[in-house]
C-alpha cells in the first residue's frame, strides 16, 4: 500500500500569531508592556472573529479588566468568538454574548450569571457547547478546545513578562500551557509591574502582553464561612458524619465541600472529634481551599497536609506561617493550582463530602434549579468513584468490601470504593424539600434544551447520605429498590420520605443500612453550637494567633 502524504504549510498558527503580535507592536512599550488605555485596541488587533478565547475566570480571581475591555471592542471587527473558560462570574462574561462579540460557550461553572445563561440560551443569544467539570474542561483545552487567545490574570509581572500568580494561581498554568504551546497568544492583566518578582509562576516567554490594570483584580472570599451562622442542626449532622462515617471508615484523605455543613465538621474536630479520640485517625490530608474554619483543627494538630485549588482572602499570612501543612513556594507564599488539586481530589482522596440542594429517590443529587444554568465546577470529579485508581487505603478497601454489588460486578478481584457522601437536611430554609421525586435538573434540561440533565453526583456513585433522620449506607443496598427505600427511610416528611414503608425502614436499620442518632449513640440535646471550636470569625483570628486577617465584611469588631 502506498502512503499519500499531504502538502500543506505546517506552521500557519505560528505565522498567524507572529502577524497578530507584530500588528500590535504599536501598543507595546519596553517589549511586552501595554498601557491600560490601549487594551481595547490591543484586543481588536490580536483577536479575530471565530477565535476560541479564554477569559481567565476562576472560581475566585477574575481577569476583570480584560473582561471589561473585551466588551468594549468593535463588534464589526470581532464577533462570533467561542469562549472557553471555567467560570463565568462577572456580568461582562455574559455581556460579550449580548453584544454579539461572542457566540459559543464551553464552561464549567457560572454562579451569579446562571440565570442569564439560561435566558440567553432560550433567546438564542448563546450557543452552549457543554457544561464540564473543571478537569474535563482543562483536558479539552489540550484536545479540541485550545484557546487561540487567553486573557489571564496575575498578581505581578516584571518587564520581561514573567508572572507571579502566587497564592491565587488557580487555573493560570493550565490555561497558559494549553494556549502558548499551541502557538496561541497570552495577554496578562496584573496588579503591579515590579523590578523583581518574589518567584516566577509563569515564565515570561509564555506571555505576549502585560497590562497593568487600573484596579487590583476582583477576588471573592468564597470559602469563608462565619461560624456564627452555623446552626444546631448543622452541628448535629456534623456529629453524625464524624461518628458514623469519618470514624467508621478511618477517613484520612478527603475533600470538603463549600457549605456550612462541612464547616461545622471542621469546627467539631477539636471538640467532638477529640472526645471520640480520633486525632491522627481521621482528617489528616485535605484537598481543600484554605478554609478559615479549618484553623482550629490545624492548630490542634489534626492536619498534616492541605493542597489548595485557590487561595482565600485573608489566609495569606496564616498559610505562609504553616508551611509544613500547606504547599508554600521558596519565596514563602503558597501556590494554589486548581488542575493539580482537582487531580488529587479525583484520584488521591478517599472521601468527598458536601451539600446539595436536591436528592432524588435514586440518589442522584443536583444543585441545579429550573432556570439557572450553573454547572458544578469540580464537585463531580471528586464526587465519583475514580475507576482509574490503583492504590489502596484502609478506608477505600472497607467501603469496597461493604459494596453489595462487588461480587456481581467485580468477581473475585479485591477492589475498593471511594466514599461519596452528601449531607442534606430534609427541609432547608423556607421549608424547601431536600428530597424530591424528580430533580429540578429535568426541568432545566427542558428549559435550556440541554441534552443531559445537569446532575452533580450520579446516584450510582453516591455511597452515603446524611440527614438529621439518619445515615443511609447506600453502597450496602442490594438493588435499586432497596437503595430507594434507604433514601426514603432518611428523607423525613418530604414527599420522598412520606412514601417510606416503616417495615422496610426497620429492616434496613437492622441490617445497618440506615443508622439513626440513637443507633450512633449521639445525644440530640447535646448537639448545639456550644460544640463548635470557634463560634465566630474573631475566634478564628484568635486561634490563628492573629495570622488570619479576615476581609472587612467578616469583621464584627
Amino acid at each position, binding site marked *: 500500500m502506498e502512503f499519500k502524504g499531504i502538502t500543506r504549510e505546517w506552521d500557519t498558527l505560528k505565522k498567524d500569531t507572529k502577524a497578530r503580535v507584530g500588528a500590535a507592536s504599536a501598543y507595546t512599550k519596553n517589549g511586552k508592556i501595554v498601557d491600560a488605555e490601549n487594551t481595547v485596541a490591543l484586543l481588536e488587533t490580536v483577536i479575530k472573529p471565530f477565535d476560541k478565547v479564554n477569559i481567565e475566570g476562576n472560581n475566585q480571581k477574575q481577569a476583570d479588566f480584560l473582561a471589561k475591555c473585551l466588551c468594549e471592542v468593535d463588534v464589526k471587527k470581532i464577533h462570533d468568538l467561542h469562549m472557553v473558560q471555567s467560570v463565568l462570574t462577572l456580568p461582562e462574561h455574559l455581556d460579550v454574548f449580548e453584544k454579539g462579540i461572542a457566540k459559543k460557550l464551553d464552561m464549567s461553572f457560572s454562579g451569579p450569571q446562571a440565570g442569564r445563561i439560561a435566558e440567553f440560551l432560550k433567546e438564542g443569544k448563546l450557543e452552549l457547547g457543554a457544561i464540564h467539570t473543571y478537569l474535563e474542561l482543562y483536558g479539552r483545552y489540550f484536545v479540541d478546545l485550545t484557546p487561540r487567545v487567553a486573557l489571564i490574570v496575575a498578581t505581578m509581572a516584571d518587564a520581561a513578562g514573567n508572572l507571579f500568580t502566587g497564592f491565587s494561581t488557580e487555573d493560570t498554568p493550565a490555561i497558559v500551557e494549553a494556549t502558548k504551546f499551541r502557538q496561541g497568544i497570552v495577554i496578562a492583566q496584573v496588579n503591579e509591574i515590579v523590578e523583581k518578582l518574589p518567584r516566577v509562576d509563569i515564565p515570561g516567554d509564555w506571555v505576549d502582553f502585560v497590562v497593568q490594570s487600573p484596579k487590583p483584580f476582583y477576588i471573592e472570599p468564597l470559602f469563608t464561612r462565619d461560624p456564627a451562622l452555623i446552626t444546631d442542626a448543622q452541628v448535629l449532622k456534623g456529629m453524625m458524619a464524624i461518628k458514623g462515617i469519618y470514624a467508621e471508615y478511618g477517613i484520612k484523605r478527603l475533600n470538603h465541600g463549600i457549605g456550612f455543613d462541612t464547616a461545622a465538621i471542621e469546627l467539631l474536630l477539636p471538640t467532638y472529634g477529640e472526645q471520640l479520640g480520633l486525632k491522627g485517625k481521621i482528617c489528616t490530608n485535605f484537598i481543600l481551599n484554605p478554609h478559615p474554619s479549618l484553623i482550629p483543627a490545624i492548630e490542634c494538630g489534626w492536619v498534616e497536609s492541605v493542597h489548595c485549588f485557590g487561595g482565600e482572602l485573608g489566609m495569606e499570612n496564616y498559610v505562609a506561617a504553616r508551611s509544613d501543612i500547606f504547599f508554600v513556594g521558596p519565596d514563602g507564599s503558597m501556590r494554589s493550582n486548581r488542575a493539580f488539586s482537582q487531580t488529587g481530589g479525583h484520584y488521591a482522596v478517599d472521601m468527598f463530602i458536601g451539600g446539595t440542594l436536591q436528592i432524588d429517590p435514586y440518589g442522584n443529587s443536583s444543585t441545579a434549579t429550573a432556570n439557572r444554568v450553573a454547572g458544578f465546577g469540580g464537585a463531580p470529579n471528586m464526587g465519583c468513584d475514580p475507576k482509574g485508581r490503583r492504590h489502596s487505603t484502609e478506608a477505600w478497601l472497607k467501603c469496597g468490601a461493604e459494596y453489595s454489588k462487588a461480587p456481581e460486578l467485580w468477581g473475585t478481584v479485591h477492589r475498593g470504593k471511594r466514599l461519596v457522601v452528601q449531607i442534606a437536611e430534609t427541609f432547608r430554609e423556607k421549608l424547601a424539600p431536600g428530597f424530591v421525586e424528580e430533580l429540578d435538573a429535568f426541568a432545566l434540561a427542558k428549559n435550556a434544551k440541554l441534552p443531559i440533565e445537569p446532575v452533580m453526583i450520579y446516584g450510582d456513585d453516591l455511597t452515603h447520605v446524611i440527614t438529621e433522620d439518619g445515615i443511609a449506607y447506600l453502597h450496602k443496598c442490594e438493588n435499586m429498590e432497596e437503595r430507594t427505600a434507604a433514601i426514603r427511610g432518611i428523607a423525613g416528611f418530604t414527599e420522598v420520605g412520606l412514601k417510606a414503608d416503616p417495615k422496610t425502614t426497620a429492616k434496613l436499620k437492622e441490617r445497618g443500612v440506615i443508622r439513626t442518632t440513637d443507633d450512633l449513640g449521639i445525644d440530640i440535646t447535646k448537639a448545639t*453550637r456550644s460544640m463548635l471550636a470557634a*463560634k465566630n470569625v474573631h475566634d478564628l483570628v484568635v486561634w490563628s494567633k*492573629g495570622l488570619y486577617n479576615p476581609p*472587612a*465584611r*467578616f*469583621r*464584627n*469588631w
Partner: protein
Amino acid sequence: MKKWSELKDSSFFDASARERAVGLVDKGTFTEFLHPLDRYCSPHLVVLGQAVEFDDGMVCGVGLLGRHPAFIISMEGRFIGGAIGEVNGAKMVGAIRLALTAAKEIKAKYPGEYEAKRPLVVISFETGGVRLHESNAGLLAHAEVMDAFQDCRHIVPVVSVVGSKVGCFGGMGFVAAAADVIVMNEQGRIGLTGPEVIEQEMGKEEFDASNKALVYRTTGAKHKYIIQDCNYLVEDTIGDFHKVLGEIAGKSMEEIEKMRRIGSIDLVREQQELVKLVGDMQPKDSMDVWKHFGNENPAALPELSTAEFLKTVKRRARS
C-alpha cells in the same frame, strides 16, 4: 437554659435575652414579669400573619444587685430584630415605672436607707428600633420611654447595656444614649441610622455597608469609648457585665450624673464641641477622630483585645 453559675462565664454576645436578664442580677434573684406562661403576644403580628413570641421579644423583671432592686429590660434580637411594638414597648415603659414605684416605696418605708437600697433600671438593648409591623404604636412607645427616663433623673439610675448581635439602632439608639450610664462589650454597637441607609444616602464610595469593619469603627464600642459615649467597656462575659452593674448600683447619684453625655445645657455645649470638631475635620473614617484624640496608630485599635485596648487607648477629654 444555663444555670446562673454557667451564665457568669458565658458570652454576653451569644446569650439570649432571658439568659442576659437572669445573669445580669445576683444569683437566683430574678423574677420575670409577663413571663412566657402569661402568653402576652403581640395581637398585631397575629393579624399580619407574622410569627409571635410569648414574651413579645422582651424579658422584663426584677432582680437584686446587692441590696439594690434592679429592674431589667432585656431585648431579644432573634425575634424580629428585637424591634419595639405596642406590647414590648409597654413592657419597657412598665418596668421603668415600676422602678420609680419601688423608689417611692423604699423612700417611704426606709427613709434613711434610700442610697443603700436605691433601685436602678438596666436595659440590655438588642434592637433596630421601631417594629414596622406595628410602627405607629412602636413610635409612640419610644416617646413614652424617653418621658419615663426623664422621670428617673436624679432618682433612679438608668443603665444601658449594649453588646448583642443586632446592636442598638433606630429610635432605641437615642434611648440608649439618654440613659445615665452606658456599658458595652467590644461587639456592642449604638447608632441612629443603620449602615444600609447611610450607604443609600451617601453612595457606596463614601460608606460601604458590607464593610463590617467600617461599620464597627463607626458605631462600635471602641469608637463609643473613645468619644466618651460609653462609660464602661467590659469583656464579653455576662459575669463581667454583672460585676460592673454591681459597682454602678453602689455609686452616688452625683457620680452617676457625671457619667451622662446628654441631658443638660452644659452637656449640649460639650457635644457641640464634638460636632464642631467633626464638622471642621470632615473625617473620612472614625480613625481620623481617634488619631485626633491622641491615638497615634488608630488602625491597630480594632485588633486589640479589650484589655489591651483599655490599657493603651486615648479618649476625648471631657470638658
